[in-house]
């Protein structure tokens, strides 16, 4: 069992985190280093396809245990309920109004795929296995939080005649929730991995396994550039909200950890579920909120989940949740 310090240093000195740091520095200093948007989107699709496919193959080769149904229900429960906690904290500890608090809350019930992928990289580096179906949990956790967020937002009085126009879950948002590109690709690749199993893996491995960590490192460079450019948006967000972006993942992570422990996941699985609960969406939920909760300000929720919670989880959170999982598992 590694000490927390060893874990932290090992994480800090991995190419993944270093490339992220390079990106942050370059973005912060306004270097003109930029990865073309198409490449960046392509890399992110690659990560979803690869992580989904590998999860499916893993599930196929290890068989479906009884735990899986429980785990999937847990995932849904976490995504639906975490925003309630987040909302309560935000309304208590910050000055955000109802729509903004609801919108931010929705982000923290959902997940960040890249944080998850970075955590699998962290585990892979240490040869720690995890249950393949955790990937299915990831897919399931992406969107339920959006529904909770919108329900929470209803608490504000609809202002004026236009409010009546937008139904609770418009067709557009429903599509965002159920047919979101990320969810479809992740879930679909998972299913294909499950169906084709090891035969499929023979075909896909040279692309989805071998270069996976290196692609992740390059993607993190790009994430770093984005984060670095948004670091100055901090001030607009306000310190109480920034603080929320740090303690909410800690709280969420611990809840996820205990829940995962309760249903009997392995060390790797516990770490990953903690990461899922701790991480916040910065692609899917912002898009859904912009369409269905336009009163909420994207200049608050995007920098918060992208420029604060994401780096925090990547650098501090992952080794921390893992150390906590080791500690619980070792009890």
């Amino acid at each position, binding site marked *: 069992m590694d000490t927390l310090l060893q874990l932290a240093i090992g994480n800090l000195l991995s190419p993944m985190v270093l490339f992220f740091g390079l990106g942050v520095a370059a973005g912060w200093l306004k270097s003109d280093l930029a990865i073309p*948007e198409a490449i*960046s989107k392509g890399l992110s699709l690659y990560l979803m396809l690869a992580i989904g496919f590998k999860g499916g193959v893993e599930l196929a080769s290890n068989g479906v245990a009884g735990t899986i149904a429980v785990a999937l229900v847990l995932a849904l429960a976490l995504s639906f309920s975490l925003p309630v906690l987040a909302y309560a904290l935000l309304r208590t500890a910050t000055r955000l109004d109802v729509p903004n608090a609801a919108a931010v809350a929705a982000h923290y019930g959902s997940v960040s795929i890249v944080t998850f992928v970075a955590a699998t990289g962290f585990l892979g580096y240490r040869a720690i296995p995890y249950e393949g179906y955790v990937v299915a949990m990831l897919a399931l956790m992406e969107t339920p939080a959006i529904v909770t967020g919108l329900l929470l937002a209803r608490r504000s009085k609809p202002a004026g005649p*236009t409010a009546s*126009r937008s139904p609770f879950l418009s067709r*557009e948002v429903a599509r965002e929730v159920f047919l979101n590109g990320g969810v479809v690709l992740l879930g679909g690749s998972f299913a294909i991995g499950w169906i084709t199993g090891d035969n499929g893996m023979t075909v896909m491995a040279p692309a989805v396994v071998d270069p996976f960590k290196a692609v992740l490192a390059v993607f993190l460079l*790009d994430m770093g550039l*984005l984060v670095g*450019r*948004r670091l100055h948006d901090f001030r607009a967000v306000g310190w109480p909200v920034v603080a929320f972006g740090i303690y909410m993942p800690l709280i969420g992570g611990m809840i996820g950890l205990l829940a995962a422990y309760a249903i009997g996941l392995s060390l790797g699985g516990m770490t990953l579920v903690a990461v899922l609960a701790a991480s916040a969406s*910065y*692609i899917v939920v*912002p*898009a859904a909120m*912009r*369409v269905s909760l*336009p*009163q909420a300000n*994207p*200049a608050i929720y*995007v920098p918060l989940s*992208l420029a604060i919670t994401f780096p925090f989880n990547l650098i501090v959170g992952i080794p921390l949740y893992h150390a906590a999982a080791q500690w619980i598992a070792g009890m």
Partner: protein
Amino acid sequence: MVQLYRKKRIDIVVEAARARAIIEMIQAVGAKGYTIVPDVSGRGNRGVRDEGHLSDVFRNMLIIVIAAEEIANLIVEQSQPLLENYAGIVVVSDVEVIRDEHF
């Protein structure tokens, strides 16, 4: 010389998240066509909007419609409630086109 007909041109710059609603409105009021420049950035009352990466949340679109004056008026009017809470501007100008029946 070719005969020209007077029409209105409407340029709408709007954040991507609202473009679909605007386009549906444009068709609903009876405009016969529109053109979209899918990826423009800009600055307005709501600050700089140019973060194309990651999500469309900070991206604008430019929608151009050529239409008869009555339809143009409808578009201008109905764009107002749709733009509440969203970044966007609506600009009208005079233009001439060739085939009257086409617009």
